Every structure is written in C-alpha cells, then in structure tokens.
C-alpha cells in the first residue's frame, strides 16, 4: 500500500479542473426553492460553449421535454430538467483527463447510467429526483481525482481490477489506504457541494451501516442497477454486491421496479447520444 494518504490527494485536488460556474450554481441551489429559471439562464448564457450542447441534449428527448427548444429563453419550460441537462453537459465537457490507460468517456457513460437509474429510483420512492441525478452523475468523481493526482498508482488499480477480476474498491484498498468513494465524498465537501450529494458519493460502495442516509442507499442501488442493465458498455462489466439492508430501507422490490427498466435504457441511450458519448 502506498504512503499517499487521502489528505495528500485532497491537497493536490487542483490537478482536477473545478466544476464550471453554471454547474456549481445548479448543484448548490438544488434545495433552494427560490432558485429560478431566469437566474439559471443568466448563468448559462455566460458560458456560450455550453449553450449549443445543452440545446442538443434538451432536444434529444432524454429528459422528456415535450416541445422543441431553440433558445435558452425557452428552456424556462422545464426548470428541473434543464438543471439536469446543463449539469450533465457542463460537467462532462469540463472534466475529461485522459491517457492510454484511462478513458474518461467510459467513466462518464457509466456515470450517466447511474444518474438515470438514480433518477428512476428516486421517482419510484418519491425522493428528490434532481438531487439523485446529480449525485449519480458525480458518484465516481473520486476516480477522476485519483487519476488526475496520481495516474501511475491509479493505473495499478485498473490493472489489478482487470487482471484479478477484483471490484474496484478492493483494488483501490490494495494500492491506497482508501477508495474512490471516500476520495470523491471528501472532494465534494471541499467543493462545498450539498451534504446529501457528498453522502451519495461517499456511500455508494459502503451502504451497510446506513450512515450515508437515503442518498447513500439510493446511489448504491443505482450503481448496482446500472451495472445489471449493462449501461455504459463497460469493458469486463461485473455486477457489484447489492446490500439487502439498503434495498429494504428504500423499499425497493425489483420485480415491481422492473417495469421501469425499458424507460431507463431508452433515456440513457438518448442522453449519451446527445452528449456525443456513443
């Protein structure tokens, strides 16, 4: 195990680009009932690079918008959905470290799969669907951090996972003294994201105790479901362990929930296509 601690990693977090301003605004106002579409459009229009991609995503149908949209002004039609679209577009475009060993497009496809599963689970249990989508989208940000700070050691993790067919958390604990979920959770706190988002990131591989609350349970279920639905075209995909306790706490019955599978797949396909990740 390397001597590099989680504190060391976080001290070098500037190796990873920070979230774009518009994404930061969306995430920090997730629970703010006074946040309105006018403010969002104002933030969005300060970043022209994002606007065209947002419009393409909005029109893809992945978020269920009924009418064709051709200006940011019309985006006011569906504030919650536009928040999700803008966030996905801005984050995926900004944070894209790459090397021969690590392809961020694969990670973002998986993250969008988890985000779509998180939204569907949230809708089924009457939980905040936009917050769930956000936590799902960012749940593996710790992997991007580890790769950005220490690409060689993270490369070792990926090699172990591939060669030994280990789950990534076990591979990480063999190389580091912590895992990407803990690193991502701490990064979310460093970035001052809402506590529920940080809990979702931190708890997605560690749901047993329930210490990360409903969001921790929800992102754990979304992560496993995304693997089970084979979203993201992950090389050597393997469905992780699923917590009985987390399923029970959220009251998810998979036989009943199964009616949502086809919709999750359809919306995932449309969104990844719109974001140019296919």
């Amino acid at each position, binding site marked *: 195990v390397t001597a590099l601690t989680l504190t060391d990693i976080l001290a070098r977090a500037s190796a990873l680009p920070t979230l774009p301003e518009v994404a930061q605004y969306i995430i920090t106002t997730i629970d703010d009932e006074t946040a309105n579409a006018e403010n969002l459009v104002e933030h969005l229009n300060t970043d022209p690079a994002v606007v065209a991609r947002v419009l393409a995503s909005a029109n893809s149908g992945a978020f*269920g918008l*009924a009418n064709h949209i051709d200006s940011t002004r019309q985006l006011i039609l569906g504030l919650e959905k536009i928040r999700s679209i803008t966030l996905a577009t801005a984050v995926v475009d900004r944070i894209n470290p790459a090397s021969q060993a690590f392809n961020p497009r694969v990670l973002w496809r998986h993250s969008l799969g988890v985000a779509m599963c998180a939204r569907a689970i949230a809708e089924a249990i009457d939980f905040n669907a936009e917050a769930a989508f956000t936590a799902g989208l960012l749940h593996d940000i710790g992997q991007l951090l580890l790769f950005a700070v220490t690409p060689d050691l993270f490369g070792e993790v990926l090699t172990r996972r591939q060669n030994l067919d280990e789950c990534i958390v076990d591979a990480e604990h063999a190389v580091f003294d912590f895992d990407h979920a803990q690193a991502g959770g701490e990064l979310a706190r460093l970035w001052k994201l809402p506590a529920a988002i940080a809990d979702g990131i931190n708890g997605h591989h560690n749901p047993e105790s329930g210490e990360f609350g409903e969001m921790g349970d929800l992102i754990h279920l979304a992560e496993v479901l995304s693997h*089970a639905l084979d979203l993201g075209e992950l090389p050597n995909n393997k469905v992780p362990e*699923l917590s009985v306790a987390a399923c029970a706490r959220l009251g998810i019955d998979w*036989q009943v929930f199964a009616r949502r599978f086809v919709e999750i797949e359809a919306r995932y396909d449309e969104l990844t296509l719109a974001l140019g990740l296919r």
Partner: protein
Amino acid sequence: MVTAAAILVRKGEELLPSGKVLDSAIIESIRRRAIRFIMVNVPDTRDEEAIRRDVEMAEKRLLHIFRGGGSEARAELQRAITAFRLRQAS
C-alpha cells in the same frame, strides 16, 4: 406503428388503449400532454433460429456480468433483469 401497452394518465385513467394505431394527430396529442415515453409494437422479422441465437447470447451475457456469488438482494435483481432480457430477446 401501434401502442404495445395502454397509456395511462396520472390518476390511472386510460388515455390510449393497447393496440391503438399512432397517427400524426395522436402523436401530437401525446406530445402536448408531455407524456415522455410510450411503448410501441415493432413487428418481429426474425426467424426461429435468430431468436434462439439472441436468447442464447442474452443468457451468456447475463451469466458473465452476474459472475460470482452475492446477496439475496443481488439474486433478486438478477432474476428481474433476466426476465426482462429474455423477454426482449424472445
């Protein structure tokens, strides 16, 4: 193109029955109601051999991604996913 399942509105009332032909007026009406997703029947042109191959591939892929043991919750999810995939493949 026809609906594969009835479209229900929020209170459970039926908006369109299963098997309804979707013409442009109906599609526009669905759009206006902001219904985000419907299921349509697509004629299956595969022969029996192609269906058998698709089912076999689906089963093989499921065994691969669900390799290794796990909890009862994971087994329950596997059963739900398997039923879904086999329905799609056949």
